[in-house]
């Protein structure tokens, strides 16, 4: 009877694996891998980096995916694709995106470009860079001279002294990353093995 129960358990496990395989949506990379890749500093192309690439003539090696369709300096890039954000996963669009070895994405907002990059990576696009800020800013970077101070000032940061305006804000905030103690419990588990 024990043997039959074991066999049933193993068979049930196989069925669960099959269901998982059948029901799971089609992605080429795990969610964690995608997040790791888009969080990587190298994926976000900062303005200074873009300008350097332009000055060194490296932009010709890249295809530009413009989700807003309004970039003026298209000629700077090796090839140019204009696809609305909501249509990037359509089969023909995805095919044309995948044809490019190295891809840069720009959109009307940086968040849209980041989300598009996440979706494209999860669908198997490998070499992808996200241009900081938006299409207008990218045009500005490409047309003006190298200005490190200006470029640095555009980085994502606090534009206002938040604490000055919103008073006593710290009263309720608590850092979630700090491990809280379990009431009446043991915090550290010494995980000794053994049989």
């Amino acid at each position, binding site marked *: 009877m024990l*043997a039959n129960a*074991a*066999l049933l358990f*193993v068979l049930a*496990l*196989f069925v*669960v*694996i099959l*269901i*998982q*395989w059948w*029901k*799971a*949506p*089609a*992605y*080429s*990379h*795990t*969610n964690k891998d*995608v*997040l*790791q890749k888009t*969080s990587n500093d190298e994926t976000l192309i900062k303005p200074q980096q873009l300008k350097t690439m332009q000055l060194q003539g490296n932009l010709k090696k890249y295809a530009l995916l413009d989700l807003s369709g309004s970039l003026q300096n298209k000629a700077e890039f090796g090839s140019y694709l204009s696809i609305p*954000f909501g249509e990037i*996963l359509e089969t023909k669009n995805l095919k044309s995106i995948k044809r490019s070895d190295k891809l840069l994405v720009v959109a009307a907002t*940086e*968040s*849209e470009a*980041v*989300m598009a990059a996440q*979706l494209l990576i*999860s669908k198997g696009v490998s070499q992808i860079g996200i241009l900081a800020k938006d299409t207008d800013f990218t045009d500005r970077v490409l047309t003006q001279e190298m200005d490190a101070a200006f470029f640095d000032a555009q980085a994502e940061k*606090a*534009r*206002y002294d938040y*604490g000055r*305006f*919103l*008073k*006593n*804000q710290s009263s*309720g*905030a*608590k*850092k*979630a*990353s700090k*491990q*809280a*103690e*379990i009431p009446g419990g*043991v915090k*550290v*588990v*010494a*995980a*000794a*093995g*053994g049989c």
Partner: protein
Amino acid sequence: MGPLIPQGFVNPDLNLFFAFVIGLGFGYVLEQGGFSNSRKLAGVFYGYDFVVLRVFFTAAITAAIGLLLFSYMGWVSYDLLYVNPTFLWSALVGGVIMGFGFILGGFCPGTSMVAAVIGKIDAMVFVLGLMIGVFIFGSFYEDFLPLYTGENLGSIFIFDTLGMSRDWFVFLLVLVALAAFIVTRKIEDKVNGLESKSGLFAPLYVGPVLIMLAAAIVVLWLPESPRAKWFEADAETVLHEAAEGKQFVQTEELAYKLLNPKENDYMLVDVRGDEAFAEFTLPGAVHIPADKVLDLGYNKLLSESKKPVLFFGFSDTDASQAWMSLRRAGLEDVFVLKGGLNQFFETIFFSENQVNTYQEMPVFEARFIERAREAFQSGEAAEKINVKAKPVTTIVEMEAPPAGQGGC
């Protein structure tokens, strides 16, 4: 899901209780398997009964395959499993002592307890000897220490040492185990003067053997974890929502909810870096950096939140990234503060509120912004909120035990 204690499913205080229950089950199975009989146990050394070898091989391959399949399904977090460190000299010397004791007494520590419990005198003597050994070891612990902790190889895996992949190792282990089952059965028959049955296996074993082989092949074929889980949202759905901007919550809505805490049903999550969070955050917010939203503890906190989750950062870039990851992970009630903190402050504190119209809505909106500005600046809002964030109690910090703890 597992391991159960580090992930908060089992209270660490009940650790010994579960150990006791599992111990009872283990002892029962050993006894039922005939392991309380020293003749049966010693048979493996004389060649007339290899049941010990078969049982432990079966346990090893079942556990190995089960662990890999459970890890693939996400039921066990492989990274959280504790692996005993290898102390080479104590393993060698201890192995020799245990082997010597085994063949001399006919028991190993676990089986001696089982046999003693059912009243076998030889087992009781064995347990007494075992206790004397423990006493001597304890008394001269300092003297044994260099040997005991000598040549610490760390938490190594045999497949790493052999330079092969984990999955191939398990597959080969299954093949070796199956070969051992066949060979030991033939040896047993010869030693016991029985006529060997034709074929490799008794017909009864064909099914289990085939299933074990199939499981080993599946382990070899499966990646470490599936690229997508069955509960994840498909890319088209997520894209559709993102393109329509369904994830965004406007500044005014958040301002209203901050000023009316009873109506604030959001769990505010600050996705900026540590330094920025330490300097300022919204009242009642918790801190989870955008690149960590899928980490085990944080993900559990977010997915178990009874409130909708609202991510915010300086702008909405990092928050959108976090939103997309969680949305794909199957969470539905997740949102992003449109424009982030910069737009929030821009709207509340720096927008022009002169309304040159007699239409109701723009006038109400302008009045609301003005009222919100006053409330935030005077500290009235923070006073009203005064919400303490829920502590994270789901993950228990793991710490390796001192050198040499654990073992048979």
